[in-house]
């Protein structure tokens, strides 16, 4: 009951802003926060629950973004379908990555994901026939859509806001579902001790590959949305290591292996970052680095984990 109320409350909070303000900056801020919520939540599926710290999720983001753009520009496919296909292509890309990287554990896994993401970035940079290389891909207009008899105004930020709010809510719902399913329990076991997990009959490779695929799907959707919203992608924008690292930070600072943690992380870090960027243009990740260090040192369970512990009283 309280859970349903909480879920309804969160949903309302997510959907309300466009009704309250027409201010383009605040809407842009909301969209950015929700995009990073989606990415943080997606990363948390694998990194938080299963304890597999990936430094390579930009690969899925970039693949999702490029798939959406390429299908629209070269195949004429409407980007909202392209976005879903982008998620699915990210899943396809995730399978070989999982099979290669999941052989490794701990920091070695992290380094291998970073290498794989760099390989994907370099391929995108150099496969000019498909991606136009460093020049990037640009969409000038989005196709006409009408909703309830009215044409959707793509020049306004409101439709984008609702699209990304829906995606973020879906990712949160998936996390909630996972945390209650057997797979969620398996992932926690894998995080605690992989050998012991195997010994009690858990197919750890399968659990990790499935979770990576789910995580890649949502990350790819996020990439597709990015293409749609900014109408421009290039390898530096959608494949950098820093992008992978931001996803990690949002989840860790917010609180790992929880539904709400990455949301808090995204709201907190993205808001600070965007306000800083609005004022100074560059260097907004200073705070990401700083809060990451503070969190690891003083709040290893993240903001949400710490708050929850304070709420239930110290054990």
């Amino acid at each position: 009951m309280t859970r349903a109320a909480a879920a309804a409350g969160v949903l309302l909070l997510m959907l309300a802003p466009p009704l309250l303000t027409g201010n383009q900056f605040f809407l842009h801020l909301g969209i950015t926060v929700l995009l990073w919520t989606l990415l943080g939540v997606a990363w948390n599926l694998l990194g938080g629950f299963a304890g597999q710290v990936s430094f390579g999720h930009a690969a899925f983001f970039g693949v999702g973004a490029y798939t959406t753009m390429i299908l629209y520009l070269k195949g004429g496919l409407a980007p909202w379908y392209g976005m879903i296909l982008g998620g699915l292509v990210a899943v396809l890309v995730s399978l070989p990555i999982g099979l290669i990287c999941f052989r490794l554990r701990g920091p070695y896994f992290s380094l291998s994901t970073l290498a794989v993401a760099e390989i994907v970035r370099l391929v995108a940079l150099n496969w000019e026939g498909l991606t136009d290389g460093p020049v990037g891909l640009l969409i000038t207009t989005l196709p006409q859509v009408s909703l309830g008899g009215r044409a959707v105004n793509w020049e306004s930020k409101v439709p984008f806001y609702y699209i990304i709010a829906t995606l973020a809510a879906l990712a949160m719902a998936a996390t909630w579902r996972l945390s209650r399913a057997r797979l969620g329990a398996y992932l926690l076991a894998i995080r605690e001790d992989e050998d012991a997990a195997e010994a009690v009959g858990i197919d750890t490779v399968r659990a990790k590959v499935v979770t990576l695929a789910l995580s890649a799907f949502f990350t790819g959707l996020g990439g597709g949305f990015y293409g749609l919203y900014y109408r421009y992608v290039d390898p530096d924008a959608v494949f950098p290591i820093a992008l992978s690292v931001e996803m990690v930070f949002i989840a860790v600072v917010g609180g790992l292996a929880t539904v709400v943690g990455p949301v808090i992380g995204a709201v907190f870090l993205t808001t600070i970052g965007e306000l800083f960027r609005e004022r100074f243009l560059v260097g907004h990740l200073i705070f990401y680095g700083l809060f990451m260090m503070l969190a690891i040192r003083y709040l290893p369970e993240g903001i949400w984990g710490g708050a929850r512990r304070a709420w239930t009283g110290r054990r």
Partner: protein
Amino acid sequence: MALLTVTDLTKDFGGLRAVAHFSFAVEPGEILGLIGPNGAGKTTVFNLITGFLRPTSGQILLEGRSVVGLRPHAVTRRGIARTFQLVKPFPKLSVRENVTLAAFSRLPARRDAEAEAGRMLESVGLADKLESPAADLTLAEQKRLEMARALATRPKLLLLDEPMGGLNPREVDQASALVKRIRDDGVTVVLVEHVMKAIMRISDRVVVIHHGEKIADDAPDRVVRDPGVIAAYLGTRVA
């Protein structure tokens, strides 16, 4: 027919031969002790049987079917469960959740798995610790937790790697009684142990491994008198 038949098992690590043409069989319903000096290859044999390591050569049959090449979780699902020499609980998870995870291998529904976990924990005497994080248990309790976890997969064969190592004499007695009861409940047991007195008392048969090779395979009272075993391992002071 033997429950487990190991034939000509060999494992090389680089240039080092850890297990050499090792053969033994486990009969249903027995408690088999596997002993040998430090570094003799006991744990390696367990790791080979349970799929954590792949043999260089040799055969491992459970009820006539090979388990070589299966990954550990698949071996567990075939009916071989194990505990670890250095305990490996899921430290942050509750005692109940530790065992529930193992029960999932046969009981997909959480309610059934939790009920099963409760029964297993009751039988090893941890019923009053269900909600504690596993990390908070004493070593003896963690060893019992690992046994409950292994039993929750409903194994035919249970491999115990030093279930009494590091325990005090009273805890050793309790652990011995528990191992016997597990056998009486129909689970065949192989145990690796350093606590000689206990292993001699509860084992029906003892296999001695030295430098990766089998040097004896007999009833406990005969093994302790075997000159080769005494020379290799037991020395002159035998309990």
